[in-house]
């Protein structure tokens, strides 16, 4: 490591060369100048995106001038190419948005395109001052008795990063193919996709360790040591990770599932390594629940075996209406609501005799548990209209008031007042 740091520190020595300083000052000056001009809108009516080409053109002219005077210009050219590439990435953004959703574009840019570009740029600049191959073979130190060089570590980090970032689309494609072939549900497909990703990441990590030549015995010893650490330090993290894997295999909490949380139906959006992301329809909130919660606590699911939910609304009708008529009307009304399933058929029940009305319940089935509140509202509205059409009264609560007379001995019952 010391050797690598000394090597990098040694690059500062190039700054004693006037030609290098001149190029750096020119490039940095033009970059800052362009930025300042764009911020302050120094050219009226000039589009914001067009300032960079202006700066790049100026840099091109400066580079040509240096070349014409026989001065070194390669650093200007190299930095200009990097600047141009970065600008190109900005131009690529609207093009990508035509083909991909914004979230995907953001992921692609932040996880792959920009890091990749910066990496290539850094390598190109290092190549200007040093031998990349030389740096790659610089020893960093020993890990479990195995000598690790900069190049090996760099390759390992890049491979791990690419596996972590890049295994998503292939895993999704494979899961989709399996779904098409076997006929899995969407939830199962998503679970399979996640499991494939974990498997690829796991295999990738092991492959990198093997490629580095790490001693497996030492790794096992470290794993033993880590288990103690896991017991004390990162128990919760590890517990959540294992819970997540277990839940995936079990299939009870998978993306697309609907779970009841604090009385609200929530849809599972993403099952992460540590926590599960749920979406609550009521207030469009995204809830991050540790995986361990689902592993240790009871949860209500509407999507374990199928996605249907039996819902219910309550209503009261006046005592003077024939209950059989009311029940028939309620069932007929529910059947007319479009999002209420015809089969199983809606069922109305007389539940109890209340203070002011006879209490009925109307039970019906819906296809998507997340739509429950909306469908209940539709059913309630339909009942109101049906009752109105059939002159069925929904009574207000009725109370009898007595006027008290003092002293109580002079008080007479209401019947006597009449």
């Amino acid at each position: 490591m010391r050797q690598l740091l000394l090597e990098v520190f040694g690059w500062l020595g190039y700054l004693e060369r006037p030609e290098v300083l001149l190029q750096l000052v020119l490039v940095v000056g033009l970059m800052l100048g362009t930025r300042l001009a764009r911020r302050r809108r120094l050219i009226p009516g000039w589009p914001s995106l067009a300032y960079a080409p202006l700066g790049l053109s100026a840099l091109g002219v400066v580079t040509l001038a240096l070349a014409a005077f026989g001065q070194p210009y390669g650093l200007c050219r190299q930095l200009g190419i990097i600047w141009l590439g970065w600008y190109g990435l900005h131009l690529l953004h609207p093009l990508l948005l035509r083909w991909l959703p914004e979230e995907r574009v953001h992921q692609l840019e932040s996880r792959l395109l920009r890091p990749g570009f910066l990496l290539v740029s850094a390598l190109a600049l290092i190549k200007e001052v040093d031998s990349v191959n030389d740096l790659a073979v610089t020893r960093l130190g020993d890990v479990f008795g195995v000598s690790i060089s900069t190049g090996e570590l760099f390759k390992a980090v890049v491979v791990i990063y690419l596996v972590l970032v890049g295994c998503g689309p292939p895993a999704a494609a494979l899961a989709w193919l399996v779904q098409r072939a076997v006929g899995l549900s969407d939830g199962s497909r998503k679970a399979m996709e996640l499991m494939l990703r974990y498997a690829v990441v796991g295999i990738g990590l092991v492959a990198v360790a093997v490629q580095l030549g790490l001693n497996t015995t030492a790794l096992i010893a470290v794993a033993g040591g880590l288990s103690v650490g896991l017991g004390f330090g990162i128990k919760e993290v590890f517990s959540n990770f294992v819970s997540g894997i277990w839940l995936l295999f079990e299939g009870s909490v998978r993306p697309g599932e609907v779970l009841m949380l604090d009385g609200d139906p929530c849809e599972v959006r993403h099952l992460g390594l540590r926590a599960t992301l749920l979406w609550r329809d009521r207030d469009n909130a995204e809830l991050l629940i540790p995986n361990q919660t689902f592993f240790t606590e009871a949860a209500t699911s509407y999507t374990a075996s199928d996605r249907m939910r039996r819902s219910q609304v309550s209503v009261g009708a006046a005592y003077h209406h024939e209950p059989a008529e009311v029940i028939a009307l309620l069932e007929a009304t529910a059947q007319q609501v479009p999002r209420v399933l015809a089969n199983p058929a809606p069922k109305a029940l007389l539940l109890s005799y209340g203070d002011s009305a006879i209490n009925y319940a109307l039970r019906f089935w819906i296809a998507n548990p997340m739509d429950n509140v909306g469908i209940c509202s539709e059913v309630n509205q339909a009942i109101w209209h049906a009752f109105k059409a059939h002159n069925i009264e929904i009574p207000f609560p009725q109370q009898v008031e007595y006027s008290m007379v003092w002293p109580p001995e002079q008080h007479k019952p209401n019947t006597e007042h009449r």
Partner: protein
Amino acid sequence: MMGALQGSMGLLSALRSRRSRHLGLWASLISSAALAGCSAVPQLPNVLYLAIGMSADQAIDGEAHQEVQDRLAPLEQGYRQLHPSTRFQFSLYPETDLGKTIRDRTQSGLGPDLLFLNGATALKLLDDGLVDPYPANARDTAQFNPGDLDRIRDRRGRLAGIPVLVQTQVACFNRKQLATPPATLDELLAASAKGRRIGLSADVINLFWTAGSLGAVESITNVVKGNPIEQQELNTLIRWLAWLQNANNQLRVTFYPNQQTVISEFLTGRLDWIPCNSVSLPRLRQRLGPHLGVSPLPDGVGGAASPVNRLRVLALGRSSSSAGRARALAFSRFSTNPMVQRVLTLGSQTVLPANRFVKVPVQSSEVLEAMETSQQESHVISSFLESIHAGDSRMNKVQAELTILLFGERSPEEVAATLVTAFQRSQ
């Protein structure tokens, strides 16, 4: 004090408005720098950037990096006793790519201060304007053999660099398998007939030593110089080629595409005898330990072997600052100092000194003796080497013909005729 005052004013004004806050920041930075200047300005490191060309038979890996570092360490330590603040930063490049790499880096002003490379490559870089001529004075040049200097002098008499070392071609063998090294080509084939495994590189430069053993060097030199070839000379050329073809027909003589493969096969114990460059000796010693034997290359019916030794020179890069150039010159002169040359030779026993006033104690070491013999024998090809420059396209044709010969596609007579035509083609 002025700087501090400016800084204070800057800081006061910074409180007034957003714009002046920026000005204040700049002012405080400048004043800080000014104040720092009164006490201690951080100095840029005095770095000597050294690019090292590695031959095609040397792999650029961690081991090579370590070897170079180990070889450079005593030199660096010695130099730092005189110039304590100087640091060294070296980069290894394949000699074949050196031209392009140095061109790219020089275009950026980031080229190395010094290049350590083969004399022929240095001459090529001088022709291409990628290194500066070495400003050698009479005292400098007096240290070297005029022949060595001629090898690195261009048509205008400019020196492409200053000679530092000679890497020689010798024979390496495994003592566990071969008690006595073969002294002649016949003994070499006899050893192979007895079960010893011989490895040769099909690369023409690495194989050229056999031309001397079979007496073909003079013929080839004549042809390269464009002189008409006589029948007797053609016969020696055919004899050389016939021996190569015959050797390839031997069961335990194997030709490999390059010297790197020959070395790695020898290291794994699949070969018992190989020709090797002395620069490979540290790696071979590390693996074989006391079982590594080193001897001169076998002679033959035509005379002594004609090894192609590499004269390694230090050439001046074109991007140096004036201070960097001064460091480069100081270091190159330090490296050719007789005391340093002696340390380099005796310390590693892998190279010979370029300074002619340094005597090699050949009786103290069989390796030094083998290298010294190789150096003596290589004089026979100096005339040939003067006519061939780095990247000479004629050598590509010769290489292609030699490969065809080794595969038995053509007879030695046919290949000899083609080689004559190829060599006589003017550049």
